[in-house]
């Protein structure tokens, strides 16, 4: 195996995926942690898209 592949295998083992998903269970709510993390990342990305200024654009009033 090449060094690159070995590296990938080592990283793959950092987050073992070969088992059933872990779930957050809170009352009626049941969601896998992987789905929860992705939803969280989407919310963060959404907030970033609104709050981070777009490069090269001056706010109205600025000169």
């Amino acid at each position, binding site marked *: 195996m090449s060094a690159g*592949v070995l590296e990938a295998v080592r990283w793959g083992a950092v987050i073992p995926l070969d088992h059933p998903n872990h779930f957050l269970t809170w009352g009626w709510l049941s969601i896998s942690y992987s789905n929860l993390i*992705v939803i969280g*990342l*989407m919310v963060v*990305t*959404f907030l*970033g*898209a*609104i709050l*981070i200024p*777009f490069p*090269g*654009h001056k706010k*109205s009033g600025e000169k």
Partner: protein
Amino acid sequence: MTTATDKNWTRSLRKAGESAFPPERLLPDTQPSYVASWIYVFGALTMAALGVVTATGLVLAVMGPTWWHHSSTGHFINSMHLWSVELFFFAMVVHLWGKFFMAAWRGNRALTWITGVVSFVVSIGTAFTGYLSQTNFDSQWIATQAKDGINSTGGGAVFNVLNFGQMLMWHITLLPIGVGAIVVFHVLLVRRRGVVPPFELSGAKEEVAQ
């Protein structure tokens, strides 16, 4: 004898096309200043991801659905296909949220929103049939679970999730053609109507007047 003023479908089609999409509206080089926000990038990001999905899917189609089990190149292309799909849905959801909070269906843009909704639903169908095309135990498991749900609706008579050939056909021809056509229509509608103006700030008019 025909004259230039006679009814003629090619001419009326051309005229309709010209008035709906004059070149500067089809490919504009400027946009209103409120478009200078990251949130407007997500429609284009969704399209870019769809481009990678399509390109890698085409390679997988050339080599066949079991290629990725025995070739590391195949595995790489398969992973590219999977991860660009993940990005596609990720970007689409951020795009959808953005348009929802701008109420971007205002001003005669309902069809833009509706084609967005339909593209979302058809994309989910494409992803599901993709899971059935993996040719592994995972896809067999999913198919045997899905068949009960679909049979309970009666749909199993025409849409048999245990039929690998049928699912692969849906995944690599019918549904992608559907997604592609809807996206083209969606983006043309955006060009036709122009980007929706933001909500008026309450009290903004009075401030400007002062």
